[in-house]
């Protein structure tokens, strides 16, 4: 399945680069966040495919893989050392940013289950029909906090590491 893994990594890189570009030029958070969510989803799937636990058809339908990987990565001392952290420090670091990673993954329409997402309109609990282009998405502001910056650095690092390891 290395072809699938590498293709997902390639697309994750492309989506990530588009996220970086849109951070400079896009006015609406939904457009920026859409590419960030897609980059994270595809990186997570590439990591899942590298684990080779299931058929490609099952893996392609998976969601939340990046957050799951983050949580499991806390067992890996080699990853901790790449950050000059002890295993305990790395665990605390990841546990601190995992909820934000989960929030990014939940921006995808397949995970949002008819709720707020960055791609399609939805109906909120009051009955109002909402469009992504009209929403502020509080997570966009959270990504500017130290915790958000740490998450973005970690995503960039995982992407580089995966490319170095597999491509």
């Amino acid at each position, binding site marked *: 399945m*290395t072809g699938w893994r590498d293709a997902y990594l390639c697309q994750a890189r492309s989506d990530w680069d588009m996220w970086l570009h849109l951070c400079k030029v896009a006015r609406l958070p939904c457009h920026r966040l859409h590419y960030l969510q897609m980059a994270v989803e595809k990186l997570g799937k590439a990591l899942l495919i590298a684990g080779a636990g299931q058929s490609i058809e099952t893996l392609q339908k998976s969601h939340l*893989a990046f957050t799951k990987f983050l949580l499991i990565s806390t*067992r890996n001392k080699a990853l901790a050392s790449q950050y000059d952290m002890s295993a305990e420090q790395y665990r605390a670091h990841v546990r601190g940013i995992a909820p934000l990673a989960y929030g990014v993954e939940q921006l995808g329409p397949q995970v949002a289950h008819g709720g707020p997402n960055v791609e399609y309109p939805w109906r909120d609990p009051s009955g109002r029909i909402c469009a992504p282009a009209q929403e502020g998405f509080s997570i966009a502001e959270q990504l500017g906090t130290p915790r958000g910056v740490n998450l973005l650095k970690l995503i960039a690092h995982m992407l580089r590491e995966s490319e170095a390891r597999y491509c």
Partner: protein
Amino acid sequence: MLERLQLQSDMSEAPIESVVRRLVEEHFGLEPLLERIVWFRDGNGAAAEIRLIEVSTQTLATGRVDVFAFGPTPDTPYLLRIAEVTPAEWDQVRRRQISLPDDWTLDNMCAFERQGADGR
């Protein structure tokens, strides 16, 4: 790349069972919310990799066994394939309602509980 990593591993210096027991101890120490770690022995006898499912009360439930691979290190000279599931998902795995990865079997596993971390 995974194949290359496997070839780089020096399995003769670290019997796989002792490596697994050390990993189990480390992971229980690192993750207070881990209830159980299950080691799936390699069915083909080559002992090329370590396969673990870790059962945690605080992980994302996905309804699948999502496996991630970590390359060999000096401490763990085996490819490490690891998944984390909730206790409810583990029950479903045991009832065969959630599939295990290919070549992993419930018939050849060793479960470590948090208390004492004794293999059984």
